[in-house]
């Protein structure tokens, strides 16, 4: 008997996962808005503008981290160019936001300010339709998906993998950054897009708008986690992990790794793009700096810090690293890079399974003490450090 898809979707996650998700939804959709709007400033439980924006931003980062983990943790493909898809999503939505400014820019023109500055007389062809919200959404999904698909097709077809793939993706985002730095490219050059005023007619700085964007970011994160959970527990996820561990065997039993990799790669890019599109209205700026190789590699460290091959790990990682960054850059700006650099080194050296792995180890040690050691298979196979932790079958209790 075949179980309907919806049921399978629901059962993909244990009950504790659903409870955690419900609590998260309650906090994001009810408690935070109430604490932000209803409680007066100065009240101990009041949630400030700064908090809402910062957390909303980090929620977007968390989506990117999960997207990164889907390809790195589960498929073994390390992309050092995911910032590109994030930025492309941001730019695609930013075009809409720029058009929403209307004649309120400093030059009082229908064209975005930077075009007036460049003495352009009309919108370039790729800006056509950018005043439509729906078209913006289409662009957010389609453009990064198309670029990811084409790039992935050629890269995976040639069986570029390992560090080759990583460096080529880094080169890709670097090239895109150079391209977007040019004024003639038509995306605001150095300064990118900023000074947004409205979104769907609503003021972009209004607390209500912020809260809606915040709630949407939370929703996107929950959907990403659910989708990810479904994928990694399906046969698709098992094939993916098999490709990661022994690609040639997968081929000789009749799967085409190209299609599997391409699917997860493109999906991951689209998730990044959606996060980027939500990120831009919250922080109010998008510029080519988002495409810098350093940004992309930071995404990888979010996943690594939290724990690759789990779904909750990258979320934890994104929160930990981003909040640490916010704190450091305010308190000890000199030392942020030292901290980040050491984080890269120490996590790879001593915490290969990230925070989730650390927690498991602590819990495992505690559990083991009273009961006779019931060696968990995956734990013993850990000696083989070549293999990333397998979480396709366990972990991930989002």
């Amino acid at each position, binding site marked *: 008997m075949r179980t309907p898809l919806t049921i399978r979707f629901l059962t993909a996650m244990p009950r504790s996962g659903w409870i955690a998700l419900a609590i998260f939804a309650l906090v994001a959709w009810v408690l935070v808005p109430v604490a932000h709007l209803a409680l007066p400033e100065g009240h101990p439980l009041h949630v400030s503008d700064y908090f809402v924006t910062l957390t909303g931003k980090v929620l977007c980062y968390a989506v990117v981290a999960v997207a990164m983990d889907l390809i*790195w943790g589960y498929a073994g493909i*390390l992309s*050092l160019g995911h910032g590109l898809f994030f930025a492309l999503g941001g730019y695609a939505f930013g075009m809409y936001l720029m058009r929403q400014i209307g004649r309120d820019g400093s030059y009082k023109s229908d064209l975005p300010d930077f075009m007036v500055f460049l003495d352009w007389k009309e919108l370039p062809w790729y800006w056509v339709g950018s005043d439509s919200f729906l078209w913006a959404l289409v662009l957010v999904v389609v453009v990064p998906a198309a670029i990811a698909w084409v*790039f992935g097709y*050629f*890269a995976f*077809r*040639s*069986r*570029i993998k*390992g*560090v*080759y793939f*990583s*460096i*080529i993706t*880094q*080169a*890709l985002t*670097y*090239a895109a950054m*150079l*391209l977007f*730095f*040019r004024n003639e490219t038509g995306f605001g050059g150095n300064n990118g897009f900023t000074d947004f005023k409205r979104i769907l007619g609503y003021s972009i700085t209004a607390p209500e708008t912020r809260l809606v964007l915040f709630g949407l970011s939370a929703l996107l994160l929950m959907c990403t986690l659910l989708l990810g959970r479904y994928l990694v527990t399906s046969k698709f996820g098992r094939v993916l992990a098999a490709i990661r561990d022994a690609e040639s065997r997968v081929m000789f039993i009749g799967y085409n790794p190209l299609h599997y990799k391409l699917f997860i790669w493109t999906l991951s890019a689209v998730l990044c793009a959606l996060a980027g599109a939500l990120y831009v209205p919250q922080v109010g700026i998008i510029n080519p700096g988002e495409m810098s*190789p350093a940004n992309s*590699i930071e995404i*990888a*460290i979010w996943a*690594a810090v939290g724990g690759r091959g789990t779904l909750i790990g990258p979320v934890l990682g994104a929160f930990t690293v981003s909040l640490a960054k916010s704190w450091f850059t305010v308190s000890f700006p*000199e030392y942020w*890079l*030292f901290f*980040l*650099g*050491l*984080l*890269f*080194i120490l*996590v*790879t*050296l001593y915490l*290969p399974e990230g925070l989730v792995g650390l927690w498991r180890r602590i819990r495992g040690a505690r559990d083991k003490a009273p009961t006779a050691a019931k060696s968990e298979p995956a734990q013993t196979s850990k000696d083989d*450090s*070549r293999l990333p932790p397998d979480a396709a079958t366990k972990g991930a209790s989002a």
Partner: protein
Amino acid sequence: MIRRLILLALLAHLTCLPAFAALDPAQLARLGAEDSDEKIAAIAALAGADPEAMLPIFKAMSEDALYLAGDTLIRVEGDNYIDAASGKTLTPPPDNIESITINNRVRRTLDGALAGLRLFAAERDVRLAAAKELTASASAEVLPLLDKALAKEADPQIKQLLVLAQAKASLGSPDAAARLAAVKSLADSADPAVRQLLAAMLDKSSGSYSEPDEAVRIAAVASLTQIERRIAIGENLGRVFTGVSLGSILLLAALGLAITYGVMGVINMAHGELLMVGSYTTWVVQGLFRSYAPQWIDAYVLAAIPLAFMVAALVGVAMERLVIRHLYGRPLETLLATWGLSLVLIQAARVIFGPQNQEVANPTWMSGGIELYAGAMLPLNRIAIIGFALFVLLIVWLMMQKTRLGMFVRAVTQNRAMAGCVGVPTRRIDTLAFAIGSGIAGLGGVALSQIANVGPDMGQGYIVDSFLVVVLGGVGQLAGAVWAALGLGIVTKFLEGWAGAVIAKILVLLFIIVFIQKRPQGLFALKGRFVEN
């Protein structure tokens, strides 16, 4: 008109060489007249006086260092006040001196006079510069002057320039035959300005050609083609040269990476920072020489070479021992960890040396350049870098092919397990190979400091480029790395000339992505079963 006057004065004077009239103080004082026209007339008159004596005065005038104290013209040189007519230093300095200001019109006249005077100077360099200046602004009035100078000039290079100037000047001659001769002799030029002049003769925008004589026009077309070809050759030569020079920098950056990647199969993302370490070492050595041994300052680069190698090698060994060694078999994690190392090194450089860029000056023997071909100037520092890259390449090649260490390194590159079995101390080889690779990056840093500013971020751009060289050349292939580096350098420079730097960079990246589609193992691929492992 004024120009003509000066030249005539100059000619008049030249005809009665060498009897110079002594400088007349009253005449000189006219240079300080209120009226610009009068100043110009004074310059014209004085242009015929003794060049030796007039040169410093005109020079002072153009540098706003000429003053009038009553009726005495005074030029100021450092702290000294010198009577322009007698050349005697005045002590104590005169009171109430008035500065002489000149406007642009006066300045142009002055420059012309200066160039004319300098054509007869004793120093070759001065004459050469003057000849160049006159060639650039040649007009029919200069012709007699040029004839005189030509008769006197012995230096072939200057003579050539003067002939060119003469031909250029003759283009404006009313005599068609003279123009024809000029057009024909200009065919040897490679000067874009000459091209413009000839093209102007063929201009038809006003209805008829600006050159009335057809024979002259035909000759002009022929000369124009030749000039254009020569300019194109010059430009292309220049591009090939800058391409080779970029390629040699890439090679220095990539050689070390090729060794470490070949041996250990890890990409060291902090490789670019090892370049930075080399560059900062050079900067520090330069500072030490400046403070303690200024007389040997020109040798600082030579001292920096071994030091940069050692410092970078030490940093590399520390990285290998502390981090990379513990990540064997986990190449992707190594990418991240070494990226972390690069962040730490960059920030350390910022804290130690400050965030701003530091300048490393070329030693004098590396300043200047050689003119290989019309318009193609080869800077000496870049030539030195190419030579240096070749030298390093030779050393590396000898080390890899002729020494026991090199044999071990090659063995580990090909089959680590087997090499271990036959007694190669693989771990020691790793460390040594890493030290050597890092040291070579340090050498690259020395080279880089000679053509670019030294700053904490300078290494960032090189990791992708040098990795691309390694990919393009094929892993573990020295020859591949060489060809890939040179090829990338030259192709980049040609694309830059054609499409600008950013587009060129993007095109190169796209090219490499496509290239990997066709030849995944690089230019010099190893084939066979062992590639598959």
